[in-house]
């Protein structure tokens, strides 16, 4: 039963991800992304990571999605399908390459899993106790304190980087 659910949800995640890139209407893209996030959260839940599942829904589906939608509404992209359509056309020309890389990656990993048997080692070792909030906190503020702290610099860097790209010069507003 859990297995069946897992495959269903995984399929949903993949379909959702395809929808994000294939959809012509940005709002449809965003909604597909939302579907993918929910499917991922369900996978976390199936694996026993309740907190991660909750955080996934709260942070991504809640906050970030709303932000995306706001941006799309504010920029009024909903009605302008043409530029995005050109994009889709450009993508369709590269579709064979994309499919090839995707299929190759999938085939190689299927092959590897089949040859290695079930990926047991990780399950047996299980040194990461992220299934409880306490275990997660211990990892984030213990083992991985340094990358955790520096990821805040990463967020700062990303904010500045976006600012550089998005800030409009005076006289540039019409572009």
């Amino acid at each position, binding site marked *: 039963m859990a297995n069946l659910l897992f495959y269903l949800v995984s399929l949903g995640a993949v379909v959702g991800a395809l929808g994000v890139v294939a959809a012509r209407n940005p709002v449809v893209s965003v909604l597909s992304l939302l579907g993918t996030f929910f499917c991922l959260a369900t996978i976390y839940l199936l694996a026993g990571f309740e907190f991660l599942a909750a955080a996934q829904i709260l942070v991504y589906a809640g906050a970030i999605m709303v932000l995306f939608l706001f941006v799309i509404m504010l920029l009024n992209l909903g009605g302008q399908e043409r530029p995005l359509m050109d994009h889709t056309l450009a993508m369709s020309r590269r579709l064979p390459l994309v499919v090839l890389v995707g299929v190759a990656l999938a085939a190689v990993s299927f092959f590897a899993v089949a040859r290695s048997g079930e990926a047991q*080692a990780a399950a047996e070792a299980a040194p990461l106790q992220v299934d409880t909030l306490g275990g997660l906190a*211990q990892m984030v503020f213990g083992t991985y304190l340094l*990358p955790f702290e520096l990821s805040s*610099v990463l967020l700062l860097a990303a904010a500045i980087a976006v600012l550089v790209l998005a800030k409009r010069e005076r006289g540039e507003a019409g572009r």
Partner: protein
Amino acid sequence: MIHPANLEALTSTDLRGTAPMICVTAGIVLALLAEIAPALRPARGLAFVGSLLAAIAFELRLVADPAGEVFHGAFAASSRSATWGVLFCCAALIAWTYGRRYYKEEAGHVAEHDLLMLCSTLGMMLMAGSRDLITFFVGLELLSVPLYSLAAFRRVRATSVEAGLRYFVLGAFAAGLFLYGSALVYAATGTVSLAGLHDASLGSPLALVGAALIAASLFFKVSVFPFHFWVPDVYQGSPTPVTTFMATGTKAAGFAFLLEVAFVMPPSSAGLIAAIAVVTMALGNLGALVQSDLKRLFAYSAVAHAGTLLLVVAASLAGDPRAAGPVDAALYYMAAYVFTAGGAFGLVALLEADGERFTKLESLRGLGRRRPGISAALSLFMLSLGGFPATGGFLGKYFVFSSTLRADLVWASVIGVLLSVVALGYYLRVILTLWMLPEPEGERAPEVRRLSATLVTGVCAAMVLWLGLFPGWFLERFLN
């Protein structure tokens, strides 16, 4: 359960080991604060240079007296990672100095430029010392995200925006490959720390596929075949100071971790890696032969140099993976490369500030008579890039090829040396253009003069000669 022991305050060793990174972070904060009032603006340059110099000072202390693994084994402040750290800071300082007054249309954004460069340097330091895949990934993103934006920094130019977009899309793809590879390695071994991977059995196909994907993502960052296609366009389209930083710093950071993590690949793959290295060198050198644009020429030469360095990875795989020899060879090579390529790209940035056409090779005809200083420095850098004796580039190549020979990869060394001779073809062409060809009639020579650029060119040239003539100093001080 949370064990209070794991959450105890930072130890002094933790602080000592990460002191250089703390300096750079402090520099980021100070440079950001300097923007709150116009009167404080001049302090930004001070914060940039000061924080990097302080970081270099702390790194030098770590070289002499390493702090070992800090932060629960997430980061290794070894003398090796500290040496890499010194190189990153030097690369950032060189690129920044040449970038002064380079930006005209974007003059209002130079503060963001400096901040992003500091963030990227911090990411490099984290990459070089990371002892697990998660820490490395944060470092990789901290390096890449600012660079995506820096590549597109000259927003008024379509080429720059295109360079940024291309770098971003491919970089995101490489990051995805890395994460997928790490996930497979974790599924096969149950650990993501390098120490744990050392002890784990890496023979299962799952671990192999994971290692291959991790290697592929790193190959992208260091611009190695078959992931080198983006290099000429991105290097040419990006602002030249950013290209300088990318060519020196990013490559050094990528190789720093690639050498640390090389052991996850099986020893039998040494031949394959050597073959990839040779193909990369061939593509880079042959591509550079036909270029007429200096930035593009140097971009192809950067690909060729990445190929040469990949030979070191092959050598460390074929020999004892924990032997220091190949890594030391890579460090020496990269030390010489940071100053050589930094100076070469930097001089292009300097000339370009006087007019876009000065990135063309033919616009440099007869420059030797008008601007002997710039021409002499550029010639020295060309000789060092080509591996002429008495320059740092020669000894770097010598160490790399001898470590390849010691690993019994004779064929790769022979082809590598032959390709280095081919490379001399285009490096000498630049020198020939500077000194032998007649000046173009009725065309203005570049007139730009800048004290800061003169100084940093002098430092780069001195370091290139110093590394070439007195290798003992670097070997004793940094590599024991």
